[in-house]
């Protein structure tokens, strides 16, 4: 193994870990919110830039020990996660400054969670899967429960922590049984010793436990009960991070798992996942119909979106390059519009004691706070999959992928789910455009950092929807380089 190439390829991890330590030491020396925030931003941007340096050394992909395999696809996901972390940090600054008593450590947790999420796309072994997953989760327990003056976060944090640890135990137990049956923990060598998967009770049982835990982390029905409560109780900016980076990371590692271990060749496992995806699409959309709280509504819609994404998971098993391409484009779109939505809630809640997240709170918002409201309109249209937004391109990709893989039932449910979805997304837009009675003060308040970050996300949603060619070309090149 070429040591220098290995070091160069793992540069993003080294930079991020180093930056994490610098921020930590900085906090020890002197507590200044702005300095901690700036160091965090520098670290994240340096991490993003180091992908360009490392890319030179990458080639077709480099295997670092047996635990991780770094290639173009993992770099793409890394860049996506780091970009999401940058958006989170920019929007969070004002929130942290205003609402939190211990400000600086928030960024440490953010960096740690990002580090964990970077491990996931490269994981090829149960140990790296577990470590990545848990670095993200444990940082998130603390981030969810961080604000100490209000009641919601503590409840959300406790619920999230208990259920998340239970699901991690389930994943662990599944891994243990699979290991007992196959004698290896590397994804590529998980075939049961006895030969066929169907004949091995413990192998199948292991997968039952494993996928239950994974379905929990992705909030798929019937393991979704935690989602609305955690989404509602956690600070919006943290919710945005959970919805994007945490779920995206889990999904990516599962994709690699499916690709390398070829579990879907076992009919029973594939059918179970198929069922979970189908129920998630329907139930997520139906439950979202009744919600009057924006964050709960987004929680249920995320259940449906993760259900849609399972189509890409099935495709990865048979045609990895198309599967990965679909997943990256879909997740990129989902990240932009979800971060925009939660960013808007954070921005409009500035200066008020509680978060303004109910439908009544955003009544006539377009006339009071034009920029955040316009972003939320774009984001809602995009989540609904209306053409000329990124969400449409993402859904179109999934649709094409579903047809490619001949998954007619799932494609049908995708269309049906999107049709139901339009109803509740449009309700958000109608609420915001309703002209309020009485005096109007259409003055933008609050910090310009938050507002401009949110506006950038909104513009990106539109721009990528109108002209997606550069993104698609870029993704295709990197997927091809990785040699699938």
């Amino acid at each position: 193994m070429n040591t220098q190439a290995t070091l160069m390829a793992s540069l993003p991890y080294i930079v991020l870990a180093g930056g994490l330590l610098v921020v930590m030491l900085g906090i020890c020396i002197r507590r200044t919110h702005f300095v901690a925030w700036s160091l965090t931003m520098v670290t994240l941007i340096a991490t993003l830039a180091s992908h360009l340096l490392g890319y030179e050394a990458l080639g077709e992909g480099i295997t670092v020990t047996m635990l991780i395999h770094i290639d173009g696809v993992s770099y793409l996901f890394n860049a996506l996660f780091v970009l999401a972390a940058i958006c989170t940090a920019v929007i969070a600054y004002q929130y942290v400054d205003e609402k939190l008593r211990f400000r600086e450590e928030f960024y440490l947790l953010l960096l740690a969670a990002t580090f964990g999420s970077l491990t996931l796309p490269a994981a090829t072994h149960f140990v790296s899967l577990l470590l990545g997953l848990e670095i993200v989760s444990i940082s998130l327990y603390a981030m969810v429960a961080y604000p100490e003056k209000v009641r919601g976060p503590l409840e959300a944090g406790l619920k999230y922590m208990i259920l998340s640890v239970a699901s991690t135990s389930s994943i662990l137990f599944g891994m243990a049984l699979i290991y007992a049956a196959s004698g290896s923990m590397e994804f590529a060598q998980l075939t049961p010793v006895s030969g066929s998967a169907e004949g091995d009770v413990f192998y199948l049982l292991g997968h039952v436990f494993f996928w239950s835990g994974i379905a929990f982390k992705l909030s798929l029905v019937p393991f979704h009960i935690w989602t609305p409560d955690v989404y509602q109780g956690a600070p919006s900016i943290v919710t945005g991070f959970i919805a994007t980076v945490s779920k995206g990371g889990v999904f990516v590692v599962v994709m690699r798992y499916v690709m390398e271990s070829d579990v879907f060749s076992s009919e029973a496992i594939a059918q179970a996942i198929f069922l979970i995806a189908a129920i998630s699409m329907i139930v997520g959309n139906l439950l979202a119909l009744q919600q009057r709280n924006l964050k709960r509504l987004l929680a249920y819609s995320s259940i449906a979106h993760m259900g849609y994404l399972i189509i890409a998971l099935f495709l990865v098993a048979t045609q990895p390059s198309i599967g990965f391409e679909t997943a990256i484009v879909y997740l990129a779109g989902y990240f932009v519009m979800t971060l925009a939505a939660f960013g808007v809630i954070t921005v409009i809640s500035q200066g008020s004691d509680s978060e303004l997240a109910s439908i009544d709170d955003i009544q006539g918002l377009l006339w009071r706070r034009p920029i955040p409201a316009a972003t939320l309109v774009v984001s809602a249209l995009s989540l609904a999959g209306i053409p000329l937004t990124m969400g449409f391109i993402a859904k179109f990709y999934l649709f094409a992928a579903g047809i490619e893989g001949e998954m007619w039932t799932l494609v049908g449910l995708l269309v049906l789910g999107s049709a139901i979805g339009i109803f509740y997304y449009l309700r958000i837009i109608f609420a915001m455009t309703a002209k309020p009675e009485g005096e109007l003060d259409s003055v933008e308040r609050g910090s310009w950092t938050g507002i401009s970050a949110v506006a950038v996300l909104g513009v990106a949603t539109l721009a990528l929807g109108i002209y997606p060619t550069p993104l698609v070309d870029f993704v295709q090149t990197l997927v091809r380089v990785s040699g699938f």
Partner: protein
Amino acid sequence: MMDATGGIPLEHVIWFAITLFLIGVVGILIRRNVIFILLSLELMMNAAAVVFIAAGAFHDQADGQVMFMFILALAAAEVAVALGLVVQLSRRFKTLDIDAASEMTG
């Protein structure tokens, strides 16, 4: 899987671990005291650890034991954060009953 791990067949260890795991699940479902819920979670993790150790011995590899070390570290980290939340809960509500903090529904 007839071979012995110190005389005990692997299947027996696995069924024992599944029992442990299910005891943990039931504990989470019926207990309302946070400390007992944390104990149940610990039980579930250790059930997995037992299988890893036994499977490692069965396959004659060190991997299972390495995984056990990771599980120990993981459990410690999780309990550290969890107890922080428990302290918050008891300060604010003067109770360890998990339902006291629960008000979100729908």
